[in-house]
């Protein structure tokens, strides 16, 4: 039990003592994961909207495909992105490997199918009169799509929150393409993995606790947004 209690008190200590290294880790984790979610959402939200709304051949297959991609292990995504970004890889010229940018890319790839699948589900379950109603009131097709997104806003924000949860907690991809470099690409999860491997369980617990606090803050902020967006 010491192990948990000690971790908890040390976690609180890290929070209140403003340990610069830990705050650096927190800030990087937050930045990388939020950027990844935004990047993924830019593609996933419109795509989910189109797939959810339109009737076309192959729609079911696409839905099944995106649901299958949810099961993609993070290390596999890490491996693929590593391959793409490595020195001899097709995108090696960008020099992104072992930078926070690489982690953003890998996490965006991870979040993309999840957000797409959840947006598809949100749009499919939404009342199908929304689009036509907007059109009869004079909306352009784009404005009608926006109306659909607005009516599904709670589910869409939940999709983004789920995407954020998936990427801020994953460790496999971040470690492979980020390299867990101290003061540069060390995130919560890569730091926890390192502390644990060093036998520093309490430090790992402390970081885990801090991670939860950050995730809570992000979810509270998105909840505030939902409450105000009426």
């Amino acid at each position, binding site marked *: 039990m010491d192990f948990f209690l000690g971790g908890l008190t040390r976690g609180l200590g890290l929070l209140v003592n403003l340990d610069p290294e830990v705050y650096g880790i927190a800030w990087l984790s937050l930045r990388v994961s939020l950027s990844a979610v935004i990047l993924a959402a830019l593609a996933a939200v419109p795509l989910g909207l189109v797939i959810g709304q339109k009737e076309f051949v192959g729609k079911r297959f696409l839905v099944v495909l995106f649901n299958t991609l949810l099961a993609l292990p993070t290390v596999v995504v890490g491996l693929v992105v590593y391959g793409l970004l490595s020195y001899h890889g097709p995108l090696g010229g960008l020099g992104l490997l072992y930078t926070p940018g690489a982690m953003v890319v890998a996490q965006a790839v991870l979040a993309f199918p999840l957000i797409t699948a959840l947006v598809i589900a949100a749009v499919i379950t939404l009342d199908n*009169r929304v689009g*036509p*109603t907007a059109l009869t009131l*004079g*909306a352009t097709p784009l404005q009608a799509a926006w109306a659909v997104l607005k009516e599904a806003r709670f589910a869409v924000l939940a999709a983004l929150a789920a995407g954020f949860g998936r990427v801020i907690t994953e460790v496999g991809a971040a470690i492979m393409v980020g390299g867990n470099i101290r003061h540069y690409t060390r995130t919560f999860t890569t730091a926890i993995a390192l502390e644990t491997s060093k036998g520093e369980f309490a430090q790992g617990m402390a970081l885990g606790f801090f991670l939860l606090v950050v995730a809570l803050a992000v979810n509270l902020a998105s909840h505030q947004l939902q409450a105000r967006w*009426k």
Partner: protein
Amino acid sequence: MSQALFSLRGVVKRFEQREALNLERLDLEAGVITVVEGPNGAGKTTLLSLLALISPPDRGRLFFDGHELPRSGSQLTAWRRQITLVAQQAYLFETSVDKNVAYGLRLRGMDRATREERVAQALEQVGLAGFGPRRARRLSGGEMQRVALARALVLRPRALLLDEPFANLDPASAQVFERVLGELPGQGCAVVLVSHALEQAHRLAQRVVYLREGRLVPEDGHRPGA
């Protein structure tokens, strides 16, 4: 007779090979209330969706104000903005009554002051003055229907299409609807009304069109070709 606002020529609409609508020739005039009657499944709602330009015909030509309309494409929005539809079970957006009624005006880029004035006026017209701040989807069925009517009236459309507007309405509200709709022809609006509430409909109607199995039944009561 004046030039028709809507002209349909050889218009066919199918759902999975089944013909839901097949109209050789139908003209609808401005300043006239036309009531469309027919049994369930006759194609009345299908006709209104077609006239609202939200469901393109599979075949045939559709003219609005003398212009032949394309089946789809971005130019349709400009035409659609002159027409509006109050659906059989109208969908209200998950927001306030005010914002629902203002939606179409915002799309048309109307400034806020004029918008608020017109919204208040339209709510008053349907007997919902003071309902503006309420959540639209929490209202009763009849109140929602009146919001949907206000949301359409506020646009001052050249053609107003209504699908079963009297369903869900108590007698007092039905009377309000009747009075409001009765004023529209004088403003040059073409009203197309689908209704099973024959008493009210016939009081309002300047013309009655019968549909059966997607086809027009001539007004003298003979079936086409019979």
